[in-house]
């Protein structure tokens, strides 16, 4: 349900963000010249063609010159600048902003803030052509980067100032939610259930919260540009951890518990491999995220193939995330890192937490019903009718035939021991079930001074069935019937494959118990009608879900109990 809602929210968010750009004049090309007197440089003196922003090189003292055209405007304008360099900015030769202290080498330069907004004085804003000169020094970038300028644009002051808040609101909220969720899962892990799942999801919450913080630290708080590479390393490490935990959660969720460590090693290795393959940090994150989505999508599709209704929305969610992500043009992909990433993350994490909650509920329910079935089975042997009559019989045998009393007590003890042993299991071997039934018939033979027999035509078939299911059918035969002294029970087990070429697939197993049946005129012994049947259904449901059929009917002189199941 939550997965479904988050899917539609995701689509909605993508549509609204794509069509909502703020009005701004972007500078995309600059002239790059080596001049120590940047303020004086005029466009007329430059004879080299302009270059793209990303062609600006590092470890230099240089001058960037750009030309823009302003339309007539009354608005106050500001220059947003986001680049890895200390700088002095001149507007038509007039100094409008300084970030850091420039120098001609690493020691004389003191790095300035990476991002700043400089207000352009009103008297410079006449209509027509303008020239922007930026004197830069960037000796403090700690490793070669492919792109040094992230933003260079002119826009009205208000949106420029609001940009940081607008961009960071959703990440801040998400950050809070994620930290809270992570802590909550830790509390659950340490005080209730020590499941690996909780640790994985908690790790995912913490790492993606920190990832968001690292991603948005520049817009939120700012820093001097020499810290930029360090931040990129943090982002990379946190991306690896987040992607690893997302992938591992799905590995656990699809019940590949046994291969958990193997999967963890492979996924981590692939992520690290991706992180060294490409030099561009944005590309690294992008590919890692795409691969994680692809991996989750494949896991879901595989699961969908084996258990369709259950995995439908999960498969849809991951497939659509993957394709939207992959097919979006590169421009949008970069925008994505800024904007959509947080949304996609939020959706994936909320769907994961929803799955986790569903899982917990399911486990709790299952544990409850398993515990109830176990108690049910044991309680039947403490049922006064069985227990007190057996004790009365024992007292009589002690007084008249002590040796027989010992044998009787031993067979009761043996049956009880086996019931206790089997009651906690989901299934047992048919051999054990048959033994249990024979023990019960021995006890009943003592009680009714009769000779009851169980005749099994089984062959070589090895089948597993829920404990005490046939035992319960035999018990029912006694409580609803007056059996003759030499009554026989016939147990038949057959197994056949629907597809002869694949003998182990789609196996149909039929277990039939045929017992003597006398129609009771009196409905006096109605006391336990239904409780035995309920037990049988609950046990079969637990083991075979809906892939079973249970029939119980009279056929002339006989009563037929038939279990059919497919696996």
């Amino acid at each position, binding site marked *: 349900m939550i997965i479904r809602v988050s899917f539609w929210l995701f689509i909605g968010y993508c549509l609204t963000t794509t069509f909502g750009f703020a009005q701004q004049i972007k500078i995309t090309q600059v002239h790059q010249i080596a001049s120590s007197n940047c303020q004086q440089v005029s466009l007329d003196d430059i004879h080299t063609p302009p270059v793209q922003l990303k062609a600006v090189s590092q470890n230099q003292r240089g001058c960037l010159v750009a030309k823009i055209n302003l339309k007539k405007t009354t608005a106050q304008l500001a220059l947003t600048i986001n680049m890895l360099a200390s700088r002095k900015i001149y507007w038509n030769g007039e100094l409008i902003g300084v970030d850091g202290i420039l120098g001609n080498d690493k020691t004389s330069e003191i790095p300035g803030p990476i991002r700043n907004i400089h207000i352009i004085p009103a008297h410079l804003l006449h209509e027509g052509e303008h020239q922007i000169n930026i004197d830069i020094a960037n000796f403090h970038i700690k490793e070669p980067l492919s792109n040094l300028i992230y933003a260079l644009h002119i826009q009205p002051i208000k949106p420029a100032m609001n940009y940081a808040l607008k961009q960071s609101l959703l990440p801040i909220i998400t950050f809070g939610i994620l930290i809270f969720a992570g802590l909550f899962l830790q509390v659950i892990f340490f005080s209730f259930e020590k499941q690996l799942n909780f640790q994985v999801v908690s790790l995912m919450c913490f790492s993606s919260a920190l990832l968001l913080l690292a991603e948005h630290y520049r817009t939120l708080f700012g820093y001097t540009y020499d810290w930029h590479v360090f931040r990129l390393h943090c982002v990379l490490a946190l991306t690896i951890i987040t992607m690893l935990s997302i992938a591992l959660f799905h590995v656990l969720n699809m019940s590949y518990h046994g291969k958990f460590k193997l999967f963890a090693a492979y996924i981590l290795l692939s992520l690290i491999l991706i992180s060294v393959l490409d030099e561009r940090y944005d590309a690294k994150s992008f590919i890692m995220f795409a691969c994680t989505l692809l991996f989750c999508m494949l896991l879901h599709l595989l699961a969908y193939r084996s258990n369709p209704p259950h995995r439908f929305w999960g498969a849809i969610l991951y497939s659509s995330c993957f394709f939207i992500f992959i097919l979006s043009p590169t421009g949008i992909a970069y925008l994505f890192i800024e904007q959509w990433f947080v949304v996609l993350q939020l959706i994936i994490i909320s769907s994961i937490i929803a799955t986790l909650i569903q899982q917990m509920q399911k486990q709790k329910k299952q544990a409850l019903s398993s515990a109830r079935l176990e108690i049910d089975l044991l309680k039947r042997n403490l049922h006064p009718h069985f227990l007190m009559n057996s004790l009365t*019989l024992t007292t009589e045998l002690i*007084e008249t035939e002590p040796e027989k009393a010992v044998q009787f007590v031993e067979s009761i003890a043996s049956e009880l021991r086996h019931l206790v042993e089997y009651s906690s299991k989901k299934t047992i071997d048919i051999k054990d079930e048959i033994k249990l039934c024979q023990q019960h018939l021995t006890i009943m033979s003592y*009680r009714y001074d009769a000779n009851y027999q169980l005749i099994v035509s089984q062959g070589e078939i090895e089948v597993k069935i829920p404990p005490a299911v046939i035992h319960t059918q035999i018990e029912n035969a006694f409580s609803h019937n007056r059996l003759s002294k030499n009554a026989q029970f016939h147990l038949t087990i057959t197994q056949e494959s629907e597809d002869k070429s694949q003998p182990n697939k789609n196996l149909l197993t039929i277990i039939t118990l045929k017992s003597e049946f006398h129609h009771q005129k009196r409905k006096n012994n109605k006391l336990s009608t239904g409780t035995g049947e309920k037990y049988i259904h609950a046990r079969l449901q637990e083991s075979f879900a809906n892939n079973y059929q249970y029939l119980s009917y009279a056929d002339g002189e006989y009563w037929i109990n038939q279990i059919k199941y497919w696996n």
Partner: protein
Amino acid sequence: MHVLIVEDEPIIAQRLQRQVKQILGDQLDRLTWYDNLDDAELFISENVIDLLLLDLNLHGENGFELLKRMTAESFHTIIISAYFDKAIHAFEYGVLDFIAKPFNLERLAQAIARYQHTNSHSHYTARYLSVKKSGQIELIAIADIDYISASGHYSELYCGNNSSLHDKSIEKITNLLPKNFERIHRSYLVNMNRVKRLIVEAGSKYSIELRNGTILPVGRTRYANIKQKLG
């Protein structure tokens, strides 16, 4: 004395038979055993018995329906059951005793002794007596009974203006009733809570007046006891 045992497990039935023989000795004229109720009920309709030892699963309504039918009969019923938690409920319907399984000789002897001592009262309070009325079984609340009179082998229960015939003798009914029922005469058993006054007439003739105006004779030998009880 004719005892009927209804018990579906042969070895437990064997135990009951063995112990009943041991307790009653020569007093036992006949002992019959059935392992099912259908045969037992057919037998009861054609034979006279004195005591029924009945193994009964008292779960569900069927058990109590049967109990009502049996307690309306002339014989006493002792329940022998694995469901000890149902004992109190069974007593309300007027069974003589309730023996929980597993049981021993002493406990069975104690129950049979209660049958033999005609003047003993029930340790437990029966709340109803079941009577047959035109083929139907009706429950009469014991608290509503004013007095009971002997009527041959039967007895007549009087409640206000109504009376009902019970198949048990006045002696057997005494066994089932609480202590406030007092035998004032060979033929009368009175609920002492309904007595208005004791009347002494000339010639040592004694009688009791009930609140509803009914006057009943008091046996000469029983007068002193009754006077003491009324304080």
